[in-house]
């Protein structure tokens, strides 16, 4: 995974662009802070969401945390694998631990996401 291609939110979600679709999940930093993930509640394919809406939640032994939509659009895919193997998020948060794919409705929102350098600075 080329981390440089990822963009981040201040709420620790990442986004990777595949054409007009945003693949998203939670950051490596977020999975580390949460600890072992034991359950992921996924969104429904076909749902429309606005940026900042709670779109999924991730439960670890420490806490249940909302995952927020980094961009507005329509959910076109979810990572079903996480239902049986939530530990994918701990193993590969920014790759195989992706959560959902969103068909972007407003590309301008992407400009407000952070680069990996900006994100690293924020969490340091």
């Amino acid at each position, binding site marked *: 995974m080329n981390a440089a291609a990822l963009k981040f939110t201040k709420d620790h979600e990442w986004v990777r662009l595949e054409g007009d679709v945003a693949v998203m999940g939670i950051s490596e930093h977020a999975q580390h802070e949460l600890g*072992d993930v*034991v*359950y992921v509640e996924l969104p429904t394919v076909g749902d429309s969401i606005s940026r900042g809406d709670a779109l999924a939640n991730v439960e670890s*032994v*420490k*806490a249940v*945390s*909302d995952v927020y939509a980094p961009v507005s659009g329509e959910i076109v895919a979810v990572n079903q694998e996480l239902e049986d193997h939530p*530990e994918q998020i701990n193993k590969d948060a920014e790759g195989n631990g992706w959560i959902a794919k969103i068909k972007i409705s407003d590309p301008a929102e992407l400009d407000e996401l952070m680069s990996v350098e900006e994100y690293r600075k924020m969490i340091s």
Partner: protein
Amino acid sequence: MNALPELLFDKSRPGKTGYSFESDPIPETEQYVDPELQRAGIADFPSLSEVEIVRHYTNLSHLNHSVDSGFYPLGSCTMKYNPKVNETIAAMPSFTNAHPYTPHHLVQGNIGIMRDLEARLCAITGMKAFSLSPAAGAHGELTGMMLIRNCLSHRGNPRRIVLVPDSAHGTNPASAHFAGYNVKEIPSGPDGVLEPHTLREHLDKDVAALMLTNPNTLGIFERHICELATALHENGSMLYMDGANMNALMGIARPGDLGVDVLHLNLHKTFATPHGGGGPGSGPVGVADHLAPFLPPPVIPKQDGSGPRYHIPDTIGRIKNFYGNFLVMVRALAYLMSLGRSGLRNVAEDAVLNANYIRCRLSELLDLPYQSRTLHEVVFSDKGLPVSTLDIAKRLLDYGIHPFTIYFPLIVHGAMMIEPTETESLETLDLFVTAMKEILTEAESDADMVRNAPYNTPLRRLDEVQAARHPVLRWQPREQE
């Protein structure tokens, strides 16, 4: 170290029995139960003698840690020791034998207890009316949000959004969602309280209410509460207060005077019913005048001699069968009567004093992320420690102390949330402080030792991850070889 007892199933030996009957005690079962519904034999029930079963459960009960056996400083909503006299009173036959269908003219004393309790809760909180029906804190929250929804609907629009600060109790968002609202979390400020300007940024005509936990989960009093209430009311929105932390305010501040429209209390925990074991609880809801017409039945009459009212035109409807959990109400009234007005204030003052004693003693050793003054509880972070919050909690077990609440609230990294409560003595608090100091010293000199704690418990570290990912919820017979 205690060994963990075998399961009853493992102790079982064929042919053992607790009671011997000369003949089948229920010979003609088929007369009463359709033979098709009967099974031929009882499979896999353990066979043991009476004394083996008695010892099994007695030994299990010795493994419990409870507030009756040791210090128990869980924070967030008041797990305190409650006087046994309230248990004695609640166990009186006139209370335990009263059937909920008894005609009201025969249980005027019990109805009087509810009337008296409601009046006292109104006096303590400044609310105008109470419903004693809700069976627990979160049930009270749901009832409160339903009241708000019903009232706003009567005004023409129930609205869509409920705001909840990030320092609120975790049940608040769930209750608002259950009542049909979308929840929006809003951030608390650098002092650990909700700032009025933050509320105003999120306030529009779609906002039905703000759910404020006060004092919040950092133990800090929401000092802008009056200004928040005014801003909400000017917008046609309401202020819900989670009163689970009333232990810090009783006899000192009244939510009704601060602009609160709805509040719930926990009669269990704050007002004398021991908490734990899953209930029963009681989460009465207090309201301002404009919400009173929507309260759930039964409404306890103001006058002596009459029955409860069930016909309430604008009610949200019944939310619990019969009268709610009556015996919890009996304990609450006994508790309030034994303390009196000044005693109740002493409870809050001592709860705050004890928490601040711990804050002072431990703040040299632990990071205190919010500097604001705190009331009944204090939250430290794990910043700068060589071990994790979980490690410290586990090591406390070796000292015979139940750990405090960990990793909550979420806005504090590695949160350690300590609520000693008013009933603990200076000696007990010192014992806890000493244990914490020793553990932190151990963590500096031998971090791995602390990371592997506990050592003196029947089981060491439990595999919480495996338990959550692959829960085994009931015993299964072993495969026969």
